[in-house]
């Protein structure tokens, strides 16, 4: 059973979008912690 081109594409693109979102989430959390005095 071979993975199709569409399935492979969906896997890779979804993974790439999620990884791209991660830095945004981290920066938002950083700003929130910094403003709340909870960074350290």
């Amino acid at each position, binding site marked *: 059973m*071979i993975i199709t081109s569409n399935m492979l594409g969906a896997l890779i693109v979804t*993974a790439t979008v999620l990884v791209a979102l991660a830095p945004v989430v981290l920066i938002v959390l950083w700003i929130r912690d910094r403003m709340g005095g909870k960074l*350290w």
Partner: protein
Amino acid sequence: MTQTAILDPGTGWLILALFSIGWVWLGWWLGRRARGLEGFMLAGRKVGLALGTATAMATWVTSNTTMAAPQLALQMGVWGMVGYSLGSVGLILFAPLARRIRRLMPHGFTSGDFIRLRYGNTAWRVFLAISLFYGFGWLVSLGMAGGVLINALTGIEYHVGMTVILAVCVAYTLLGGLRAVIGTDFIQTLLILTGIVVLAVLALDKIGIERMHSAVLAERPQLLQLLFPAAIMFLFNNLLFGIGEIFHSNVWWSRAFAFREGVGFKAYLIAGLFWTPVPIVAGFLALTVPALGINVPSADMVGPMVAAELLGAGGAVLVFVVIFSALASSLDSLLAATSDLVLTDIYKGHLRPDASPEQLEKAARWVILGLGLMAWLFCLPRLTTLAELLYFTGAFVASTIWPVAAGLYWRRVNPAGATSAMVLGTVLGLSAYFLIGFYVAALVSAAVSMAIVLLTTWWAPRPFEWTQLDPQPIKQRDTLS
């Protein structure tokens, strides 16, 4: 210059020098406010959610992820990279454990503390042997990865690159302790994730899914096979390996102790969810090999070679920065956590039980220095490929899953059973490694360990009071400023 180098050594040296100075300065700057033993070892136990999440992600995204994920994709295809991504299950499952660890052991320092207080001295010593062997093996694996990658990317000689990366990490960990490690991890995470995404987008743009799929189908169809038995075994093996590694390793326990109250659960959960796709994004680059028609002389070089072929000299700087950051973020964490284990469980636990916090703080720096030196000596010969070294240790760490998890939640776990589970799980896991293959070592080890913990607890339960888990705090002269 090596055949695969995509940067000339001069440019390589310039980037290496800039980043080395940058990380060391940042480590000193971040760590300058750490006071006392807890400030140095555990960042004052006040790390917030943003830094907590980033450090968990950065530590788990190692050079092994950026190098071994493409290597496994080249050897095992789609299941190789998906299997590697299941390493995140360990991070996700550790989230509730982190919350419980913080609650049960508010003054704890290491994972060794837990095993000693929960199961006694014999189990503690077995656990220390496993944990130190694993921690040191991982440290050597990362040092080797540094040398290999810097050589592959810039042509700078293996021994020189390996020495530089180890020296830089030792320097800033010495200067700032866990605050330096966690602070640099945040910036390193942003660099790694952004770099990986840029590489993936460029690869998709230049090759395209259709072309990549057709070329793999024509030349190596087994890589697209969804019923690839060894790869499916690998998937489960890797899942257990990741769980074992995280559950037992002081790298993750020291963070559970260092995070603010209420942060551990969220930080590990978010980090695990966002880590899951990283090996897929890093790994699929290997599937472009047939379409690119490149010759890969060594499987663990496939990632940098594909990046070099796709991006040329212009993007080489990006690859170098990603890899340097990934290496540093894991090396520093491992140095700090392993030195905590050596300091607390070996030096204080066995050699000088009456050592004062001031003496321990001084000794902590010597331990970091000594560990760095030992790792350097072991890295001098290039022992084995990275994945082999990584999965050899799977038999050791998977044997600790049940003793750790059951010990945190079940009152009646039998201490002798927990000790036997770690010993026999490791022995039989190693046997499976040599008799069957690397992809079953963790699987066998975890299964044996589980059976022994369950059977001995059922056969001879031993009640335990949770209050016994909190060790006496080491008296501080100073606190975090």
